[in-house]
């Protein structure tokens, strides 16, 4: 088998190897830039300056951090399970990295446009939950274990709304191939037909990434850092690398599926540099939104978090699939979906407001308090 890359015919293995290496380089640069930008942007939100000392405007901060982390001693607690501890970072980073195979940077600019791309991406990226559980369990630290368990419970709960919402969108294109989903929205991006789907995807994405306000698993004030307490130096930086690489992947996939990727609004005849720019702008907007959310919202409690996933997002996501199917099967105008999506947003907002307005009503807490009082 041969494949073409930059006009040169070469074996598939070599072509894949070159493309994966380009992605590795791009990922390293982008992750460093994201860490710097996140610190700068959060700093701005909190009326601080963020890093300023290393290089002009603190631009070299991430490089300095990376050098420092490489030069730090690699510790492993004596009580830790050596195999599970050593293997956990592979299980956290590799599944996320493997997702890059289907990420469409521009039309025709992915490592491989797999036919089952969306299923593949969802299947691989959810494996890193196992890595968090392994890291938490193996560290021989109660807070790490608690954080690992929380990470799994939360990842598992938000996995289903994420999968089902993306399924609902894939229905409109009739394909799981990310390239085809992107090309299918040349005139109208999917967010117009699926406004509720986009919001649910965004919420589930934040939860899958363990980002604020869903960072109960890794929150410093609750689990003292979560699964990566006992990891130091370069091992700890692998957690960071996986987190930001995952954020990058999800933002690109989100903009490809909901915002039309590099196909909308200027069509697929645009040159590749402009397509990359368009995709860059859209994914940067999603990433900025995630950072903005982190700066604005307080952390959720675990009962609110689980309740929200199972009682609000899950039913809404399944209803979305059924409504999409109805519209497709009976060949109704797609505008109905927009109306349904807007109604769904109102319902979602109502559910959130109701939960916020009624903070009591936790039988568990009441029973616990009563038993504490009697004993």
């Amino acid at each position, binding site marked *: 088998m041969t494949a073409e890359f930059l006009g040169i015919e070469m074996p598939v293995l070599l072509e894949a190897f070159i493309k994966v290496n380009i992605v590795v380089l791009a990922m390293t640069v982008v992750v460093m830039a994201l860490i710097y930008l996140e610190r700068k942007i959060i700093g701005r939100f909190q009326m601080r300056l963020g890093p300023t000392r290393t290089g002009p405007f603190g631009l070299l901060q991430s490089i300095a951090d990376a050098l420092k982390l490489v030069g730090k001693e690699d510790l492993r607690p004596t009580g830790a399970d050596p195999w599970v501890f050593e293997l956990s970072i*592979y299980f956290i980073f590799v599944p996320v990295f493997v997702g890059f195979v289907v990420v469409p940077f521009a039309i025709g600019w992915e490592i491989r446009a797999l036919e089952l791309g969306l299923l593949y991406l969802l299947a691989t990226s959810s494996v890193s939950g196992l890595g968090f559980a392994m890291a938490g369990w193996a560290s021989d630290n109660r807070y790490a274990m608690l954080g690992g368990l929380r990470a*799994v*419970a939360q990842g598992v709960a938000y996995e289903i709304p994420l999968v089902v919402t993306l399924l609902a969108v894939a229905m409109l294109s*009739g394909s799981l191939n990310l390239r085809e989903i992107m090309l299918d929205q040349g005139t109208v991006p999917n967010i117009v037909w699926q406004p509720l789907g986009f919001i649910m995807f965004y919420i589930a994405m934040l939860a899958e990434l363990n980002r604020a306000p869903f960072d109960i698993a890794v929150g410093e004030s609750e689990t003292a850092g979560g699964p990566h307490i006992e990891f130091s130096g370069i091992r700890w930086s692998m957690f960071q690398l996986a987190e930001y690489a995952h954020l990058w992947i999800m933002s690109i996939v989100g903009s490809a599926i909901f915002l039309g990727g590099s196909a909308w609004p200027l069509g697929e005849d645009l040159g590749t540099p402009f397509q990359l720019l368009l995709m860059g702008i859209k994914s940067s907007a999603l990433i900025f939104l995630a950072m903005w959310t982190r700066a604005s919202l307080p952390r959720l409690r675990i009962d609110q978090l689980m309740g929200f996933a199972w009682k609000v997002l899950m039913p809404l996501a*399944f209803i979305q*699939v*059924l409504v999409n199917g109805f519209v497709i099967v009976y*060949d109704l105008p797609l505008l109905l979906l927009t109306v349904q999506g807007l109604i769904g947003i109102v319902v979602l907002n109502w559910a959130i407001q109701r939960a916020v307005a009624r903070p009591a009503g936790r039988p568990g807490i009441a029973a616990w308090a009563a038993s504490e009082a009697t004993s």
Partner: protein
Amino acid sequence: MEHTTDALFGGYISVLVAIVMGFILIVTALLATRLLAPFSRERNKGATYECGMLPIRRASTSIGMRFYLYAILFIIFDVEALFVFPWVLTLGAGAYAAYWTMFAFIAILGAGLAYAWKKGALQWR
């Protein structure tokens, strides 16, 4: 696109390459830190938190039952989502039977979710 074995599975060669590269990346980073980082023979550095206070017991405690409940629910609903995937790809205008069959399937699962909800399995306590 032709659906030959090559077209369906040929792309997964790059998945294999990506997996290998991911492992190589971490191994390289660990080797770099092995070469560059200092190593101390201090005995106490392996203590939990390494803060000077010795931990009292090992960390392996019992895991809350609620985690199992959520895990079982997850397995049910995630397998079900997998069943929906092929249905999504083949659904077209006029496929009434396919639609109402899946409607019944999801309705049954919805009833299951309602049952779990009523039983309090979704209540974190």
